[in-house]
Each structure stands twice: as C-alpha cells, then as structure tokens.
C-alpha cells in the first residue's frame, strides 16, 4: 500500500480548509478551533487520504486521542496509514 507523506497530507488539509474559505496556518502547532478546522473537515481529510492511497483505512486502529492542533491531525493520519 502506498502512503502519503506528512507534507502531502498537509497539502490536502490546506485544500479542505480552502474549500471552506479558510487558510492553512504556517505553524503546525496552530489550534484547530482557532483556524476553524472542525470534525467534518477532519473526516473529509481522512477520506481524501483513503481515496488518494486507494485503500480503506482502519479508523479504529490508532488511539483517537485528543486532537487539538494541526500537528495532531498530521500525526493521526500518518499513524492511520501505518496501522
């Protein structure tokens, strides 16, 4: 299975935000609430990753811990691909 790099996932996240008329912050520690990245956006991003790698991801595999920053999102999706 092919995997996406952290930078590729970050670019996709920027696309999801752009579709909502929002901007991707330069700092990965930016708070999701402050940039307006919501649960639905997160779900959409995960499905974009699925579609890109053409594999179903096991969303139950990694511990869905507190996701508060851009970095948390990228970490989670990296883990998901590795699971």
């Amino acid at each position: 299975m092919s995997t996406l790099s952290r930078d590729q996932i970050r670019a996709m996240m920027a696309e999801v935000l752009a579709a909502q008329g929002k901007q991707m912050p330069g700092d990965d520690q930016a708070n999701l609430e402050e940039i307006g990245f919501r649960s639905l956006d997160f779900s959409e991003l995960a499905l974009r990753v699925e579609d890109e790698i053409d594999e179903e991801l096991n969303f139950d595999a990694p511990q869905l811990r507190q996701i508060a920053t851009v970095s948390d999102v990228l970490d989670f999706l990296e883990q998901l691909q590795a699971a």
Partner: protein
Amino acid sequence: MTPATAGGGDRPGVGQGASRVMTRGFDGTWEQLADLPLPAAAAVSVLDNLQAIRAVWSAARDDGELLVASRTRLTAELRDELRAAGLAVVDLTPDGDSNDDPGGGVGERVIVAEATAARSPSPGRVWLLTSGSTGRPKRVAHTLDSLTTVTGAQPPRTWLCPYAHGAYAWWQVVTLSLRHPGQDVLFVEPDELESWPARALEVGVTAVSGTPTFWRQALYRDPDAVAALPLEQVTLGGEPVDQAILSRLSELFPSARVSWIYASSEAGASIAVHDGQAGFPREWLGRAAPGRATLSVVDGELLIESPRRGQGVAEVLSTGDRAEVVDGRVLITGRTASDEINVGGAKASAAAVRDVLQAHPAVVWAAVRGRRAPIVGRIVTADVVLSGEATAAQLTAWCADRLPDYAVPRRLRFLDQIPIKESLKSDV
C-alpha cells in the same frame, strides 16, 4: 402457496390480443405470436421480450399459471425454489435460424425442468418476483385481472416498454396492450436503451413509461432525439420522482400528460398523479374510495391499503418507502432503511441531498450515500453526472446554501454516465 384457482375468466376475450406488438424479431398482433407449449404451471426464463410475450399470450390463451423472468434473474437457488413451489422452470434456447417464422418458434428448443413438488396448477395465476432489494426475491400472486389497472376506453396509443421482462411495470404495459385494442407496444431490450428514441420515432411511439433514471439517461444521451418524439403521455415510476425531472419532461413535451405512478408487485398500482408535480396532495391521505388505495404516513413511512395488492399481501402494507409532507404535498423520497445518514448524531436525508443536487442546472443525475469516516461515524458523499459545467466547489456551495452543514456532501465524484440496472433503476 396453496393451490387454488386464480379466478379463471382471464382468457383473452373478443377483440383482445388485437393490439400490435413490436419487438426484436417480431412485428404483428398478439394473436399472431407463435404458439409456445408450456406446462400448466410454468416459470419461464426468457432471454428477450419476444419469448416473454409469447409466454404471456400462450398462458393467457390456455389459462395457464405463469411466472416470467429474465434469465439473469433466475439463479440456480431461485430455480430450485420455484420448482419446489410447484412450477416447472422453462428455458427457451435458440437452435438454428428462427427467422422463417415472424412469430418466433422455429428451431428453438424448449427445456423443461419439472416441478419437484406436485400440486394442482392454479389456472390464471400470474406470479411476480419482488425486486429483492431488501433480501431474496419473493413471489407475489396476481392474475391478469389484478394486473390490469387501466379500465375504460383509452385513446389509441403506441407505447414504449423498456422495463425488465416480468417486472410489475412491464406487466402493466403488457396487460394494457393485451386487454385494450389500440394500445400498441414497442418493447426494447436492455441493449437497445441507447438507441430507442430513433426506433420509437420510426414506429410512431406516442407514450413512454420509464423510471426517472431511464428518463435522465435518455435526456443525457440524446435530448434532441427524445424531444423529437410526438409524445402524448409521459409516465414515470419505480423510483422516487423528483420535481426536476417532472419539470424537464413537462417543458420538453408541453402537450403531453406527464404522470407519475406509485406501484409495486406487492401494493399494485396505488397512486397515479397527473398534475406534473412531485408527490401527491396531502388531502389524499386517509381518503377512502371504492377501487382506490387508502394512503397514510406513519412515522415517516408510506402505508398503503390497496385493492390491487397481490394475493396474500397484508391489507395495510408497510411499503418501506419514506414519505414526508412538504407544502401540502406528500413526497415519497426514498427507502426508510437507507435514507438516513447519521453524521455525528445529526440525521441527513440522502433523498433531500440528492434532490438538491439534481435541482442544480448542470446536474443531470445524482446519488447520495453515507461513507464511513472517523469521529463523526459517516459523512455524506455523492456521485454526480453533469450535463453542463460545474466544479465540485460550485456544487458544494450550491448545497451549502440549501442544506445544513452536516448534510453537504464532503466528497463528490463525477461520473461519465448514469449508472442504470436492468430494472432501469440506479439502486445506488
């Protein structure tokens, strides 16, 4: 099923069978169809409409018991089930050139697998198979009489019948033609769905019945060819009928009557609406009248008490179809079991999203479903077919203006053509 006489009296009477039927390999009246020797109780597995209408005519004339189904529907398991229910399963296999006989019949082999359970045939019984979309297909008992829902004098028409052999809608057109002289029919096969408008124009089709998906596909492929038809009657059924397709057809055929019909093997033909509007008037709910179905909506589901229901079907049938009252109309929008998409606890209606997408000027067809997603459980996604220019961002904005946030499709996939099954439905 209990063997019983289905009522007799269904044999074609004077003048019946005089309508013209046209299908690949045949152009003549019912009476000119070649004889098809059938067992007294037969499930006929057909490859085309010619075989299907020969089976109908032979069984009608001989007062036989009949089930007609496309060969693709009759799985080995279903065949065994039919034989155990007392029906011989009949396959017609071409064996050489049959062009010598315009009614078909020369050079074919009739292969009969006898019933495995003996019982007396039930003369005049017609069996239909349900779609099986919610499980295995069920047999529903009718007669030619119960399938004949059009009564009284009819203006002469030439119908196009694109429906799958043996489906309830197919039988509707068949019984109309069989029982009413002057109701001619052009049958088309699944592989003729791309070219039917030209053939329909050639033979003078004036009435067409099809599912919304059938109409959308036809208008997507060749709108000019469809618009050239001198249609007096346009009928839709078999799927939820939305305002966008009704309006489009009314615009294309301003002098035609545009109708939608709610019918199924179990409920029979229960609702007919001719005002060009989606849904039916709210006042029809609870209205009881002789010969008409009594309709109600309970917990968002359409219930029907129909005099045309199949034998053995519950008097008040829970249809499994979702219904809602909007602006004085009762809209039938989809299946209760599959319509609701739970997005993080919020309930999105797939039908409502589909209707919003299909109301976009550039969208000719849309299908909406939930897709598994982290955190929220499911999110709304859609497949669309465009007839004009539109980007995913534009469609998303269109939906965002008309739907709650959680119902806006988050993944949009653009398809090159409208998916259609043999049932003429999308079923997606």
